[in-house]
């Protein structure tokens, strides 16, 4: 059986702290077994330029905060069968969305990061993707199939979701997952 027959898995990192990725890696030795079952086609650690077509499962960590992520999300949705919102940022917006309370939140965070707290040559950078006025959880911008809340979701939960999806079942998150 060739490599390509395996179900494909993609993991994406939007505006989050990468804690969900860490939690994913915390599956530890079971990752080896998981690696036998799936082919990882896209992740922050894989050097692939474009998001592939026909991915079976995509896990997305983080909220949508800029235009690049927004177009990426549309691209991912088009190429994915099962899209999973991984972690509180993807599910609710979480810390990234705290700037939504400000009227000019997009400008306020840039100013805080690059001007107010900068001692050398303070200026708002140019040429980086434009921030959206508001931070969105994934389901406000596209359709999401499954939600895995948690900050971060426990590695047991991530493994459970992947195992269930690979077995063709729908994961039941009720009572095992929680916000925060």
């Amino acid at each position: 059986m060739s490599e390509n027959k395996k179900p494909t898995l993609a993991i994406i990192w939007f505006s989050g702290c990468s804690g969900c990725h860490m939690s994913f890696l915390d599956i530890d030795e079971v990752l080896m077994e998981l690696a036998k079952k799936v082919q990882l086609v896209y992740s922050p650690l894989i050097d692939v330029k474009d998001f592939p077509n026909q991915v079976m499962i995509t896990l997305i960590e983080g909220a949508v905060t800029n235009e690049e992520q927004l177009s990426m999300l549309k691209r991912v949705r088009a190429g994915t069968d099962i899209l999973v919102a991984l972690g509180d940022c993807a599910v609710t917006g979480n810390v990234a969305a705290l700037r939504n309370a400000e009227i000019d939140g997009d400008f306020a965070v840039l100013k805080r990061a690059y001007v107010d707290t900068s001692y050398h040559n303070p200026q708002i950078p140019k040429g980086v993707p434009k921030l959206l006025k508001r931070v969105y959880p994934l389901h406000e911008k596209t359709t999401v199939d499954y939600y895995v809340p948690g900050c971060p979701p426990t590695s047991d939960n991530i493994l459970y979701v992947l195992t269930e999806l690979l077995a063709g079942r729908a994961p039941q998150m009720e009572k095992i997952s929680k916000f925060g």
Partner: protein
Amino acid sequence: MDDEPIELIIDGIQVSAVHDATILEVAKQYGIYIPTLCDLEGLTSFSGCRLCLVEIRGSPKLYPACTTPVTSGMEIITNSEKLKEYRKICLSLLLSERTHVCSVCIANNNCELQDLSNKLGVDHVSFERNWTKHTIDSGHDFLVIDRNRCILCTRCIRVCQEIEGAHTLDLKNRGKDSQITIDFDALWGDSCSCTACRKCAKVCPTGAIYIEDELISKTKDKNVVSFLLKRRMYK
């Protein structure tokens, strides 16, 4: 005649109750779980959170279990699919109303709103969230109120009025702008009626009222009301 117990059915179980008992009280007696958030044993119920809604056979309406008295021959359903869906919607609305970010909240893992979301299967909020910028008052020596985390259950107001007898806390404004106020909209540090009894922090279901420099797990004590009432020899 009034001493005769009332016979009724909850979830197919034949139960008997005294007059003036509410559906919630009877269900609790028989170990039938109905989720609640604003209700607290010992305080006046006011059916605010709508999580305890139940169905009564023969009526198209839903009834809040905490304030609906039982009557003879009632047939009550507490856990239909319709109710589960409605309770999820209620929780989603509560979560979307203000800035509820569990990961940076002092009450993380000690929050009734968070626990219920988990228990009732709210894994996301389909409504667009309000990211509020309500005021935080940390002017008191140790009591802090963060109105962004408030779900307006009014437990603090009721405990302050009914148990402590101070009535320092109250509500102002309407709808989504409703706020817990201290005295006549004063700062907590300037309050002349607050006795600093901490009961508001003990009964707060979320992280809206808390005590500075104290573990929230140590602060929270839902049983403080029934404990005090027992000590005061009420029923």
